[in-house]
Protein backbone atom coordinates (compact mmCIF):
# COMPACT_ATOMS: atom_id res chain seq x y z
CA UNK A 1 0.00 0.00 0.00
CA UNK A 2 1.57 3.29 -1.01
CA UNK A 3 1.72 6.27 1.31
CA UNK A 4 -0.88 8.12 -0.72
CA UNK A 5 -3.39 5.32 -0.28
CA UNK A 6 -2.57 5.36 3.42
CA UNK A 7 -3.51 9.01 3.65
CA UNK A 8 -6.61 8.30 1.59
CA UNK A 9 -7.77 5.70 4.10
CA UNK A 10 -6.93 8.12 6.91
CA UNK A 11 -9.04 10.79 5.22
CA UNK A 12 -11.99 8.38 4.97
CA UNK A 13 -11.63 7.64 8.69
CA UNK A 14 -11.56 11.38 9.42
CA UNK A 15 -14.82 11.83 7.53
CA UNK A 16 -16.35 9.03 9.59
CA UNK A 17 -15.06 10.50 12.88
CA UNK A 18 -16.28 13.98 11.98
CA UNK A 19 -19.70 12.69 10.96
CA UNK A 20 -20.00 10.68 14.19
CA UNK A 21 -19.10 13.68 16.33
CA UNK A 22 -21.47 15.91 14.39
CA UNK A 23 -24.43 13.60 15.01
CA UNK A 24 -23.66 12.60 18.59
CA UNK A 25 -22.57 15.84 20.23
CA UNK A 26 -25.38 17.89 21.75
CA UNK A 27 -23.44 21.15 22.11
CA UNK A 28 -23.37 23.43 19.03
CA UNK A 29 -19.71 24.41 19.39
CA UNK A 30 -18.63 20.75 19.55
CA UNK A 31 -20.76 20.11 16.47
CA UNK A 32 -18.94 22.92 14.70
CA UNK A 33 -15.61 21.29 15.60
CA UNK A 34 -16.81 17.94 14.27
CA UNK A 35 -18.06 19.62 11.11
CA UNK A 36 -14.64 21.15 10.57
CA UNK A 37 -13.09 17.70 11.02
CA UNK A 38 -15.48 16.35 8.39
CA UNK A 39 -14.56 19.16 6.01
CA UNK A 40 -10.83 18.70 6.45
CA UNK A 41 -11.23 14.97 5.81
CA UNK A 42 -12.92 15.75 2.50
CA UNK A 43 -10.11 18.17 1.64
CA UNK A 44 -7.59 15.44 2.37
CA UNK A 45 -9.39 13.20 -0.11
CA UNK A 46 -8.94 15.97 -2.68
CA UNK A 47 -5.27 16.10 -1.73
CA UNK A 48 -4.88 12.37 -2.24
CA UNK A 49 -6.41 12.64 -5.70
CA UNK A 50 -4.13 15.59 -6.45
CA UNK A 51 -1.06 13.69 -5.33
CA UNK A 52 -1.94 10.76 -7.54
CA UNK A 53 -2.09 13.16 -10.46
CA UNK A 54 1.57 14.07 -10.20
CA UNK A 55 2.95 14.66 -13.68
CA UNK A 56 4.87 17.13 -15.82
CA UNK A 57 7.48 17.77 -13.15
CA UNK A 58 4.99 18.83 -10.48
CA UNK A 59 4.49 17.03 -7.20
CA UNK A 60 0.74 16.99 -7.58
CA UNK A 61 -2.13 18.08 -9.81
CA UNK A 62 -2.50 21.82 -9.10
CA UNK A 63 -6.23 22.07 -9.87
CA UNK A 64 -7.53 20.07 -6.88
CA UNK A 65 -4.95 21.76 -4.65
CA UNK A 66 -6.21 25.20 -5.66
CA UNK A 67 -9.78 24.03 -5.03
CA UNK A 68 -8.76 22.90 -1.54
CA UNK A 69 -7.19 26.30 -0.76
CA UNK A 70 -10.43 27.97 -1.79
CA UNK A 71 -12.34 25.43 0.28
CA UNK A 72 -10.30 26.02 3.45
CA UNK A 73 -10.98 29.74 3.30
CA UNK A 74 -14.69 29.35 2.61
CA UNK A 75 -14.90 26.80 5.45
CA UNK A 76 -13.35 29.37 7.77
CA UNK A 77 -15.89 31.98 6.65
CA UNK A 78 -18.66 29.47 7.37
CA UNK A 79 -17.21 28.71 10.80
CA UNK A 80 -17.02 32.42 11.62
CA UNK A 81 -20.67 32.89 10.68
CA UNK A 82 -21.62 29.81 12.72
CA UNK A 83 -19.73 31.11 15.76
CA UNK A 84 -21.41 34.50 15.48
CA UNK A 85 -24.79 32.74 15.33
CA UNK A 86 -23.92 30.60 18.36
CA UNK A 87 -22.87 33.60 20.42
CA UNK A 88 -25.98 35.56 19.47
CA UNK A 89 -28.18 32.59 20.33
CA UNK A 90 -26.38 32.33 23.66
CA UNK A 91 -27.08 36.02 24.34
CA UNK A 92 -30.71 35.69 23.31
CA UNK A 93 -31.17 32.66 25.58
CA UNK A 94 -29.90 34.67 28.50
CA UNK A 95 -32.71 37.13 27.96
CA UNK A 96 -30.96 39.53 25.63
CA UNK A 97 -28.71 40.78 28.40
CA UNK A 98 -25.76 43.06 27.72
CA UNK A 99 -23.71 41.44 24.99
CA UNK A 100 -20.16 40.35 25.22
CA UNK A 101 -20.51 38.51 28.50
CA UNK A 102 -17.23 38.14 30.31
CA UNK A 103 -14.34 40.12 28.94
CA UNK A 104 -12.23 37.98 26.64
CA UNK A 105 -9.40 36.22 28.45
CA UNK A 106 -6.62 38.74 28.90
CA UNK A 107 -3.84 37.64 26.62
CA UNK A 108 -5.46 34.56 25.18
CA UNK A 109 -2.30 33.84 23.22
CA UNK A 110 -1.27 35.14 19.85
CA UNK A 111 -3.21 33.93 16.90
CA UNK A 112 -0.54 32.71 14.55
CA UNK A 113 2.78 31.13 15.14
CA UNK A 114 4.03 31.05 11.56
Amino acid at each position, binding site marked *: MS*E*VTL*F*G*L*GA*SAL*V*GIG*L*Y*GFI*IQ*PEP*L*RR*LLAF*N*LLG*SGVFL*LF*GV*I*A*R*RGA*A*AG*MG*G*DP*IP*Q*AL*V*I*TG*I*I*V*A*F*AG*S*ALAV*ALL*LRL*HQADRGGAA*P*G*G*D*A*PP*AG*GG*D*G*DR*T
Partner: protein
Amino acid sequence: MTLAWAFDAILAATVLAVAAWTIVARETFAAVVGFVAYGLLLALVWVRLAAPDVALTEAAIGGGVTGVLLLGAAARLRGTAGVLVDERPGAAMRLVVGVLCGIVTAALAATVLLLPDPAPTLAPEAAANLTTTGVGNPITGVLMAFRALDTLLEKVVLVLALIGVWSLAPDRFWGGAPGPERRAQPDDALVFLARLLPPVGIVIGVYLLWVGADEPGGAFQGGALLAAMWLLAMMAGLATAPAVSERRLRLVLVAGPAVFLAIGLAGFALADAFLAYPEAYAKPLIIIIEVVKMLAVAATLGLLVMGPPERPPQR
Protein backbone atom coordinates in the same frame (compact mmCIF):
# COMPACT_ATOMS: atom_id res chain seq x y z
CA MET B 1 8.41 -0.74 4.32
CA THR B 2 10.74 2.22 4.15
CA LEU B 3 11.38 4.89 6.73
CA ALA B 4 9.20 7.39 4.86
CA TRP B 5 6.30 4.95 4.87
CA ALA B 6 6.71 4.37 8.61
CA PHE B 7 6.75 8.13 9.20
CA ASP B 8 3.60 8.59 7.11
CA ALA B 9 1.86 5.76 8.94
CA ILE B 10 2.70 7.23 12.35
CA LEU B 11 1.64 10.70 11.19
CA ALA B 12 -1.70 9.41 9.89
CA ALA B 13 -2.31 7.47 13.11
CA THR B 14 -1.50 10.54 15.24
CA VAL B 15 -3.86 12.72 13.19
CA LEU B 16 -6.66 10.20 13.64
CA ALA B 17 -5.96 9.91 17.35
CA VAL B 18 -6.06 13.68 17.89
CA ALA B 19 -9.27 13.92 15.82
CA ALA B 20 -10.90 11.16 17.88
CA TRP B 21 -9.78 12.92 21.07
CA THR B 22 -11.34 16.17 19.86
CA ILE B 23 -14.66 14.34 19.61
CA VAL B 24 -14.59 12.52 22.93
CA ALA B 25 -12.93 15.15 25.14
CA ARG B 26 -15.12 16.14 28.06
CA GLU B 27 -14.35 19.85 28.23
CA THR B 28 -15.03 22.12 25.28
CA PHE B 29 -11.82 24.08 25.85
CA ALA B 30 -9.76 20.88 25.68
CA ALA B 31 -11.56 19.90 22.47
CA VAL B 32 -10.74 23.26 20.86
CA VAL B 33 -7.08 22.98 21.83
CA GLY B 34 -7.08 19.48 20.35
CA PHE B 35 -8.58 20.90 17.17
CA VAL B 36 -5.79 23.48 16.84
CA ALA B 37 -3.18 20.74 17.31
CA TYR B 38 -5.03 18.67 14.72
CA GLY B 39 -4.84 21.57 12.26
CA LEU B 40 -1.06 21.82 12.66
CA LEU B 41 -0.58 18.06 12.23
CA LEU B 42 -2.77 18.26 9.15
CA ALA B 43 -0.39 20.86 7.71
CA LEU B 44 2.36 18.24 8.06
CA VAL B 45 0.19 15.75 6.17
CA TRP B 46 -0.25 18.28 3.38
CA VAL B 47 3.52 18.67 3.12
CA ARG B 48 3.81 14.89 2.80
CA LEU B 49 1.22 15.06 0.01
CA ALA B 50 3.53 17.46 -1.89
CA ALA B 51 1.16 20.43 -1.49
CA PRO B 52 3.14 23.15 0.35
CA ASP B 53 0.71 25.94 -0.59
CA VAL B 54 -2.17 24.04 0.94
CA ALA B 55 -0.01 23.28 4.00
CA LEU B 56 0.66 27.00 4.46
CA THR B 57 -3.05 27.80 4.13
CA GLU B 58 -4.05 25.04 6.54
CA ALA B 59 -1.51 26.12 9.14
CA ALA B 60 -2.35 29.82 8.85
CA ILE B 61 -6.13 29.72 8.43
CA GLY B 62 -7.22 26.25 9.47
CA GLY B 63 -4.96 26.10 12.50
CA GLY B 64 -4.24 29.69 13.40
CA VAL B 65 -7.18 31.97 12.65
CA THR B 66 -9.87 29.32 13.19
CA GLY B 67 -8.15 28.48 16.48
CA VAL B 68 -8.44 32.07 17.68
CA LEU B 69 -12.08 32.16 16.61
CA LEU B 70 -12.99 28.92 18.38
CA LEU B 71 -11.00 29.67 21.54
CA GLY B 72 -12.79 33.00 21.87
CA ALA B 73 -16.14 31.27 21.35
CA ALA B 74 -15.29 28.54 23.87
CA ALA B 75 -14.35 31.17 26.45
CA ARG B 76 -17.60 33.07 25.97
CA LEU B 77 -19.77 29.95 25.98
CA ARG B 78 -18.11 28.59 29.10
CA GLY B 79 -21.22 28.90 31.23
CA THR B 80 -23.38 26.60 29.15
CA ALA B 81 -20.82 23.84 28.75
CA GLY B 82 -22.35 21.36 31.10
CA VAL B 83 -26.00 22.15 30.49
CA LEU B 84 -26.60 19.94 27.49
CA VAL B 85 -24.68 16.90 28.68
CA ASP B 86 -27.87 15.06 29.68
CA GLU B 87 -29.08 15.33 26.12
CA ARG B 88 -26.32 13.02 24.96
CA PRO B 89 -27.83 10.05 23.14
CA GLY B 90 -27.71 6.69 24.91
CA ALA B 91 -25.28 3.90 24.24
CA ALA B 92 -27.58 2.09 21.79
CA MET B 93 -28.04 5.19 19.65
CA ARG B 94 -24.31 5.86 19.70
CA LEU B 95 -23.67 2.31 18.53
CA VAL B 96 -26.09 2.68 15.63
CA VAL B 97 -24.58 6.02 14.59
CA GLY B 98 -21.10 4.55 14.92
CA VAL B 99 -22.00 1.67 12.63
CA LEU B 100 -23.52 4.03 10.06
CA CYS B 101 -20.44 6.28 10.12
CA GLY B 102 -18.34 3.15 9.76
CA ILE B 103 -20.30 2.31 6.62
CA VAL B 104 -19.62 5.81 5.24
CA THR B 105 -15.92 5.40 6.02
CA ALA B 106 -15.83 1.99 4.40
CA ALA B 107 -17.51 3.31 1.26
CA LEU B 108 -14.98 6.15 0.98
CA ALA B 109 -12.09 3.79 1.68
CA ALA B 110 -13.31 1.45 -1.05
CA THR B 111 -13.44 4.41 -3.44
CA VAL B 112 -9.88 5.34 -2.51
CA LEU B 113 -8.67 1.80 -3.10
CA LEU B 114 -10.52 1.55 -6.42
CA LEU B 115 -9.26 4.83 -7.87
CA PRO B 116 -8.27 4.47 -11.54
CA ASP B 117 -4.65 3.73 -12.32
CA PRO B 118 -2.99 5.64 -14.06
CA ALA B 119 -4.69 8.58 -12.40
CA PRO B 120 -6.27 11.18 -14.68
CA THR B 121 -4.60 14.51 -14.22
CA LEU B 122 -4.64 18.05 -15.54
CA ALA B 123 -1.04 18.73 -14.55
CA PRO B 124 0.46 18.51 -18.06
CA GLU B 125 -2.08 21.00 -19.44
CA ALA B 126 -1.51 23.34 -16.53
CA ALA B 127 2.24 23.14 -17.05
CA ALA B 128 1.90 23.74 -20.79
CA ASN B 129 -0.20 26.88 -20.35
CA LEU B 130 1.61 28.28 -17.33
CA THR B 131 3.95 30.47 -19.35
CA THR B 132 1.04 32.52 -20.66
CA THR B 133 0.16 33.60 -17.12
CA GLY B 134 3.59 34.93 -16.32
CA VAL B 135 3.83 33.20 -12.93
CA GLY B 136 5.96 30.22 -12.08
CA ASN B 137 3.92 28.67 -9.28
CA PRO B 138 1.25 26.45 -10.86
CA ILE B 139 -1.11 26.89 -7.90
CA THR B 140 -1.00 30.66 -8.25
CA GLY B 141 -1.53 30.24 -11.98
CA VAL B 142 -4.60 28.11 -11.35
CA LEU B 143 -6.00 30.43 -8.68
CA MET B 144 -5.43 33.67 -10.54
CA ALA B 145 -5.73 32.74 -14.20
CA PHE B 146 -7.14 29.32 -15.04
CA ARG B 147 -9.80 29.24 -12.31
CA ALA B 148 -9.95 32.95 -11.63
CA LEU B 149 -13.74 32.81 -11.54
CA ASP B 150 -13.58 30.57 -8.45
CA THR B 151 -11.27 33.02 -6.70
CA LEU B 152 -13.49 35.98 -7.59
CA LEU B 153 -16.58 34.23 -6.25
CA GLU B 154 -14.69 33.19 -3.13
CA LYS B 155 -13.86 36.82 -2.40
CA VAL B 156 -17.53 37.65 -2.79
CA VAL B 157 -18.42 34.80 -0.42
CA LEU B 158 -16.05 36.24 2.19
CA VAL B 159 -17.76 39.63 1.97
CA LEU B 160 -21.18 37.97 2.19
CA ALA B 161 -20.11 36.02 5.28
CA LEU B 162 -18.95 39.27 6.85
CA ILE B 163 -22.28 40.92 6.08
CA GLY B 164 -23.97 37.89 7.64
CA VAL B 165 -21.88 38.25 10.79
CA TRP B 166 -22.51 41.98 11.03
CA SER B 167 -26.24 41.54 10.56
CA LEU B 168 -26.37 39.54 13.79
CA ALA B 169 -25.81 42.67 15.85
CA PRO B 170 -28.74 43.97 17.85
CA ASP B 171 -30.35 47.00 16.20
CA ARG B 172 -29.05 49.46 18.72
CA PHE B 173 -25.43 48.49 18.01
CA TRP B 174 -25.63 48.64 14.23
CA GLY B 175 -22.75 50.70 12.91
CA GLY B 176 -20.70 50.43 16.08
CA ALA B 177 -17.43 48.65 16.70
CA PRO B 178 -16.89 45.01 17.60
CA GLY B 179 -15.50 44.07 20.96
CA PRO B 180 -16.77 44.71 24.48
CA GLU B 181 -16.89 48.12 26.12
CA ARG B 182 -14.19 47.57 28.66
CA ARG B 183 -11.43 45.16 27.86
CA ALA B 184 -9.48 43.68 30.74
CA GLN B 185 -6.08 45.29 31.16
CA PRO B 186 -3.79 43.33 28.85
CA ASP B 187 -0.73 41.67 30.25
CA ASP B 188 2.65 43.38 29.82
CA ALA B 189 4.11 40.34 28.10
CA LEU B 190 1.33 40.45 25.52
CA VAL B 191 1.88 44.16 24.91
CA PHE B 192 5.58 43.51 24.41
CA LEU B 193 4.84 40.77 21.92
CA ALA B 194 2.34 42.99 20.11
CA ARG B 195 5.00 45.65 19.75
CA LEU B 196 7.71 43.23 18.63
CA LEU B 197 5.93 40.85 16.32
CA PRO B 198 3.72 42.87 13.92
CA PRO B 199 6.59 44.55 12.01
CA VAL B 200 8.18 41.14 11.48
CA GLY B 201 4.81 39.59 10.65
CA ILE B 202 3.95 42.28 8.12
CA VAL B 203 7.27 41.83 6.34
CA ILE B 204 6.82 38.06 6.24
CA GLY B 205 3.22 38.45 5.05
CA VAL B 206 4.22 40.70 2.16
CA TYR B 207 7.08 38.32 1.41
CA LEU B 208 4.62 35.42 1.24
CA LEU B 209 2.55 37.39 -1.27
CA TRP B 210 5.54 38.32 -3.41
CA VAL B 211 7.19 34.92 -3.44
CA GLY B 212 3.87 33.23 -4.15
CA ALA B 213 4.31 34.06 -7.81
CA ASP B 214 7.05 31.49 -8.28
CA GLU B 215 7.22 29.44 -5.09
CA PRO B 216 4.76 28.25 -2.46
CA GLY B 217 2.94 31.19 -0.98
CA GLY B 218 0.27 33.56 -2.16
CA ALA B 219 -2.16 36.28 -1.24
CA PHE B 220 -4.33 34.18 1.08
CA GLN B 221 -1.48 33.03 3.27
CA GLY B 222 0.00 36.53 3.43
CA GLY B 223 -3.42 38.01 4.15
CA ALA B 224 -4.00 35.52 6.98
CA LEU B 225 -0.67 36.54 8.52
CA LEU B 226 -1.56 40.24 8.30
CA ALA B 227 -4.94 39.52 9.88
CA ALA B 228 -3.21 37.66 12.72
CA MET B 229 -0.91 40.61 13.38
CA TRP B 230 -3.91 42.97 13.44
CA LEU B 231 -5.75 40.69 15.89
CA LEU B 232 -2.64 40.51 18.07
CA ALA B 233 -2.39 44.30 18.19
CA MET B 234 -6.06 44.55 19.13
CA MET B 235 -5.81 41.89 21.81
CA ALA B 236 -2.98 43.84 23.40
CA GLY B 237 -4.94 47.06 23.30
CA LEU B 238 -2.54 48.74 20.90
CA ALA B 239 -5.17 49.08 18.19
CA THR B 240 -8.89 49.61 18.45
CA ALA B 241 -11.46 47.74 16.43
CA PRO B 242 -12.81 49.98 13.70
CA ALA B 243 -16.47 50.90 13.64
CA VAL B 244 -18.44 48.82 11.19
CA SER B 245 -19.86 51.87 9.46
CA GLU B 246 -16.48 53.43 8.76
CA ARG B 247 -16.23 54.28 5.08
CA ARG B 248 -12.55 53.54 4.62
CA LEU B 249 -12.92 50.09 6.11
CA ARG B 250 -15.81 49.26 3.82
CA LEU B 251 -13.79 50.56 0.87
CA VAL B 252 -10.88 48.23 1.67
CA LEU B 253 -13.24 45.27 2.04
CA VAL B 254 -15.05 45.89 -1.22
CA ALA B 255 -11.90 46.81 -3.15
CA GLY B 256 -10.78 43.19 -3.29
CA PRO B 257 -13.65 41.73 -5.29
CA ALA B 258 -14.35 45.05 -7.04
CA VAL B 259 -10.88 45.40 -8.57
CA PHE B 260 -10.92 41.76 -9.55
CA LEU B 261 -14.33 42.19 -11.18
CA ALA B 262 -13.25 45.36 -12.98
CA ILE B 263 -10.18 43.70 -14.43
CA GLY B 264 -12.32 40.74 -15.37
CA LEU B 265 -14.82 42.91 -17.22
CA ALA B 266 -11.95 44.75 -18.89
CA GLY B 267 -10.95 41.36 -20.22
CA PHE B 268 -13.88 41.65 -22.63
CA ALA B 269 -12.24 44.66 -24.23
CA LEU B 270 -8.55 43.83 -23.92
CA ALA B 271 -8.57 40.07 -24.45
CA ASP B 272 -11.08 37.47 -25.55
CA ALA B 273 -13.31 36.83 -22.60
CA PHE B 274 -14.31 37.63 -19.04
CA LEU B 275 -11.28 37.31 -16.73
CA ALA B 276 -8.91 36.79 -19.65
CA TYR B 277 -5.68 38.74 -19.31
CA PRO B 278 -3.92 40.25 -22.34
CA GLU B 279 -0.78 38.17 -22.64
CA ALA B 280 1.77 40.93 -22.19
CA TYR B 281 0.09 42.40 -19.12
CA ALA B 282 -0.82 39.17 -17.35
CA LYS B 283 1.80 39.36 -14.60
CA PRO B 284 1.25 43.05 -13.64
CA LEU B 285 -2.53 42.58 -13.62
CA ILE B 286 -2.20 39.51 -11.44
CA ILE B 287 0.06 41.40 -9.05
CA ILE B 288 -2.42 44.28 -8.79
CA ILE B 289 -5.27 41.88 -8.09
CA GLU B 290 -3.21 39.98 -5.54
CA VAL B 291 -2.09 43.04 -3.59
CA VAL B 292 -5.62 44.42 -3.30
CA LYS B 293 -6.86 40.91 -2.52
CA MET B 294 -4.33 40.45 0.27
CA LEU B 295 -5.42 43.64 2.01
CA ALA B 296 -9.09 42.81 1.58
CA VAL B 297 -8.58 39.23 2.81
CA ALA B 298 -6.62 40.46 5.83
CA ALA B 299 -9.35 42.93 6.75
CA THR B 300 -12.13 40.40 6.17
CA LEU B 301 -10.48 37.61 8.16
CA GLY B 302 -9.76 39.95 11.04
CA LEU B 303 -13.31 41.31 11.09
CA LEU B 304 -14.81 37.83 10.85
CA VAL B 305 -12.92 36.84 14.00
CA MET B 306 -13.93 40.02 15.80
CA GLY B 307 -17.60 39.37 15.26
CA PRO B 308 -20.64 41.61 15.11
CA PRO B 309 -20.64 45.12 16.55
CA GLU B 310 -21.14 45.18 20.30
CA ARG B 311 -20.85 48.85 21.03
CA PRO B 312 -23.20 51.63 19.99
CA PRO B 313 -21.80 53.84 17.26
CA GLN B 314 -20.15 57.08 18.29
CA ARG B 315 -22.35 59.95 17.31
